[in-house]
């Protein structure tokens, strides 16, 4: 019998960046959904329970407003939290070598190989090692948050950052891009949470910073 030990380390700056971003993204999605509901882009609204801004009946009777004021206040508070946490994550990832060491390379070949393996449930999970699909997902999140911030600035300041709004095809174009990357982040969240539920040890390491697992392999 040979024994293999897999370990996962999450240094504290990474954990702070992770949990702060998680909180910020929940605030941004919850309040964003309430704002979206006041003038939907598509023919549907998000259920009030999942939005942030107060009970509509209550806010209407108090301030003649369906909680959009609250939602916007949350949104423009959450943006600072998200911006700070995202910046911390990027700086840490670049300076510590985390991006280079753990999230690169991610070529199309390895992605297809790991994706097929994952789709047929033949991709083993190794603590501390990110497969190509995971790597691609994390880069997708980095891209999505970047696009959310860029399109958000274009919506917030279509005059001061007029060039940015123009890049998104105008104000309504920026709104649409903001919605699409929100959808991408929600999609990621669903998959991310499902996988954490499958491999709960990853949650432990994101809280305590360290987890190890001992695998017993049959003797050769």
């Amino acid at each position: 019998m040979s024994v293999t030990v897999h370990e996962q380390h999450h240094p504290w700056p990474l954990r702070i960046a992770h949990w702060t971003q998680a909180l910020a993204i929940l605030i941004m999605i919850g309040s964003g959904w309430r704002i979206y509901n006041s003038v939907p882009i598509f023919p549907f609204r998000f259920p009030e329970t999942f939005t942030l801004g107060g009970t509509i009946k209550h806010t209407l009777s108090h301030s003649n407003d369906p909680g959009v004021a609250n939602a916007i206040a949350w949104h423009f508070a959450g943006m600072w939290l998200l911006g700070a946490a995202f910046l911390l994550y990027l700086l840490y990832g670049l300076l510590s070598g985390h991006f280079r060491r753990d999230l690169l390379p991610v070529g199309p070949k390895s992605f297809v190989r790991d994706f097929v393996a994952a789709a047929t449930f033949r991709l083993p999970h190794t603590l501390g090692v990110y497969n190509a699909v995971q790597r691609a997902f994390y880069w997708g999140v980095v891209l999505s948050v970047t696009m959310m911030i860029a399109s958000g600035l274009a919506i917030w300041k279509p005059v001061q950052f007029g060039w940015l709004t123009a890049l998104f095809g105008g104000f309504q174009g920026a709104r649409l891009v903001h919605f699409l990357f929100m959808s991408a982040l929600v999609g990621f969240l669903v998959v991310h949470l499902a996988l954490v539920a499958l491999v709960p040890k990853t949650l432990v390491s994101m809280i305590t910073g360290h987890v190890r697992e001992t695998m017993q392999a049959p003797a050769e």
Partner: protein
Amino acid sequence: MTDFDPALRTALAKRQLLRGGLSLGALTFLTGCDVSDNEAVQRALHAISRWNDRVQAALFNPNRLAPEFDDRLAHYPFRYNAWYPEEKSPKLDVSTYRLALGGKIANKTPWTVEELHDLPQVTQITRHVCVEGWSMIGMWSGTPLRTFLERVGADTSRRYVGFECADGYYESLDMPSALHPQTLMAFQLANRPLPPRHGFPFKIRVATKLGFKNPKWITAIYVTDRNPSGFWPDRGYNWFSGS
């Protein structure tokens, strides 16, 4: 700011900020804890909103113009928007209307509609953006507020310009936004006299602010150092709300 029961309005207290059940929605749902009506949360959000006012004032470039559009893109008729239905909007009488001036203004003589219409006018085709997300391009013609303020001897070294409206609405602008070249006393929409439902005899068109910072049916303009706030800012919306 869609149309809600106007009767509710009378029950409203002024300066009411971020009240109204901050039940934390998604967060509440996930954590099971209820922060509704948490005074500390409301105070924190309000403090951050005041901080955002300062950030926006710093970001505001008084020389940067809002994009202008081709006149074929200008909408007419234009979307009506208030917290009460269109038929309840004020219908001001040309013969009795007077624009009152107050605060740090040298010549406070009230203005008639005729006198206002004799002022020099410019035209802009800009995008009106509502805080709720809809937007519409319109063609507005009128007198730059700056021209008017200079003509009546307003002290433009003061911090704010306040507006009062015939429907009880009130709003205010920081002085740099009030002096911006695209901030107009708009007398016309799409080359027609401003329709009663859009604020006759004039509205303040601010191309660098959200829609609710564009008050209609103006009855008084005043200059002050004390922030007059606004109808929606007193209901939790960010005061600066610059674009």
